[in-house]
């Protein structure tokens, strides 16, 4: 009886803790959304009056528009390149037996385990010695590097869960390994690759810490321009851009998660 009562209390406490963690995770995000409708330039909570003033400012801010275009183009390029390289690499790691495989596995995680600031300054130091000027090329190279481990992890996880029977039946029906790959494996794997590319786009779109070392004045990304605004002229317009980041961070990866669940094999 007493034992039952104790574990009842324990379960209640755990439930309360779990709920508070969810509140903790979402409270700041909700606050950003509320404060984006703040009317005055100097922010206070609660907002004395609500308006869409700073949304209109944002829509008229051409400096930010240029940064958005840079970030989107960069994200798409980084997603495609890291998607292709990462998928090939995951196939090699999961399907092939070769010496040095575990070394490669560890090496491919390195960009995820080195702090972004150091990835940024190290790549800058190297490309600078090659006399390559900072700018869009740096960003593409770097964002592919950052996104690659995530693409490999997503695709490799899918490949480990792959039902080999489908490929085996194609092989037993007389297809060779290449035909089997192109007509069975690749079509089944495609949704996972698209999902991985959506994650890669998100990672590229959101990075500030490494990108600050790579961009020049013509290739400013949205995170860099918003960082400048936070430091130099903090107005509710920053919240509006933050809402945009939240929307991209919710919608794009959720599409990825949906694809992963919908097309699970």
């Amino acid at each position: 009886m007493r034992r039952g009562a104790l574990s009842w209390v324990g379960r209640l406490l755990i439930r309360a803790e779990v709920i508070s963690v969810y509140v903790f995770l979402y409270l700041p995000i909700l606050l950003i959304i509320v404060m984006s409708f703040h009317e005055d330039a100097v922010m206070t909570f609660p907002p004395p009056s609500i308006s869409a003033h700073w949304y209109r400012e944002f829509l008229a801010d051409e400096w930010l528009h240029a940064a958005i275009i840079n970030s989107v183009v960069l994200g798409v390029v980084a997603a495609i390149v890291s998607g292709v390289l990462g998928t090939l690499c995951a196939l090699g790691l999961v399907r092939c037996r070769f010496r040095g495989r575990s070394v490669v596995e560890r090496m491919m995680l390195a960009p995820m385990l080195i702090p972004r600031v150091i990835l940024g300054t190290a790549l800058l130091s190297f490309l600078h010695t090659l006399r390559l000027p900072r700018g869009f090329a740096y960003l593409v190279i770097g964002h592919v590097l950052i996104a690659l481990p995530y693409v490999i992890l997503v695709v490799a996880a899918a490949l480990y869960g792959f039902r080999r029977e489908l490929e085996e039946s194609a092989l037993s029906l007389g297809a060779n390994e290449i035909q089997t790959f192109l007509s069975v494996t690749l079509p089944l794997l495609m949704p996972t690759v698209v999902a991985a590319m959506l994650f890669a786009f998100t990672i590229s779109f959101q990075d500030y810490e490494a990108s600050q070392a790579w961009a020049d004045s013509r290739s400013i990304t949205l995170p860099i321009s918003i960082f400048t605004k936070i430091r130099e002229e903090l107005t509710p317009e920053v919240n509006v851009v933050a809402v945009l980041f939240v929307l991209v961070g919710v919608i794009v990866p959720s599409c990825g998660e949906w694809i992963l669940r919908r097309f699970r094999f």
Partner: protein
Amino acid sequence: VPRAGGRALNRLLNVVQQHPWLSAALLVGPAVAWVALFALVPSVTILVNSFLTRSPTGGILPIFTVSNYARAFTRLVYPTIIWRSILIGIETTAIALLIGYPVAHYLGTKKGRRSLLVLLIIIPFWTSYLIRIFAWVLVLMERGLVNATLVALGVVEEPLSLLYTHFAVVLAIVYSALPFVILPIYAVISGIDERLTEAAKNLGATDWQAFREVTLPLSLPGVVAGGMIAFIFSMGSYLGPVILGGKDVVMVSNTIVDFYFQFFDWPFGSALSLIVVVVIMALTAAVYRVARVDTIYGRR
């Protein structure tokens, strides 16, 4: 011509098929080359630069010196900054594990649909780290959410100064690191056979004993993997201290950025970076002994 090309491709594919090692190299090669060229070679570059001399104009002179390391270890400010980064890394990781573990356990042992709840843990991770840090300015600023609430409730008369403190930096980094600890632990716990805990309870163990003797030890690989990623993330944090720490809470990434882009002293910035990389490599080497890489790649 296309037919000849097709035949050449077929022949190439046949060669590849006969040499399994070659197909592995073609698949893994491009990504390995990318990481080698743009992460490993740059590490060597900063290793070399860290032993060179800064020129008076901010360039790098090819003159060998150990003075960058001498400076990093003997001038009191730099060991203090490195040590502070390690301590903040440990502190935030410990707090994140303490508040994250129960959530991971709850999700991992929950019956029925839990994919939405797991997704809700992942989603904040996908929002820019910059925005997740900035949000805490709105929570903690002088006329922000916390102070408005405390003043309205009459707990304090004057707003507290919460921004630009150790507390603000740790809180915001814990907030950002939570998904890193919850997700790996959740993945490990949801893979534990529930008949094991049932067996323990049938043999007379209480819920708590079953947890302590069965679930907790089996979940340790997840704790180690999540803790490692959270520690690296926290220790290397730049945006946390730069936005919420002010002048008092400077961490090593801030100093590296300052030396690169304000003082144009790349050799010293490289020396600091390399010290961080060595700390991380020592940690990951130790962790890879406990948690196999396999578990990170989701192999069953």
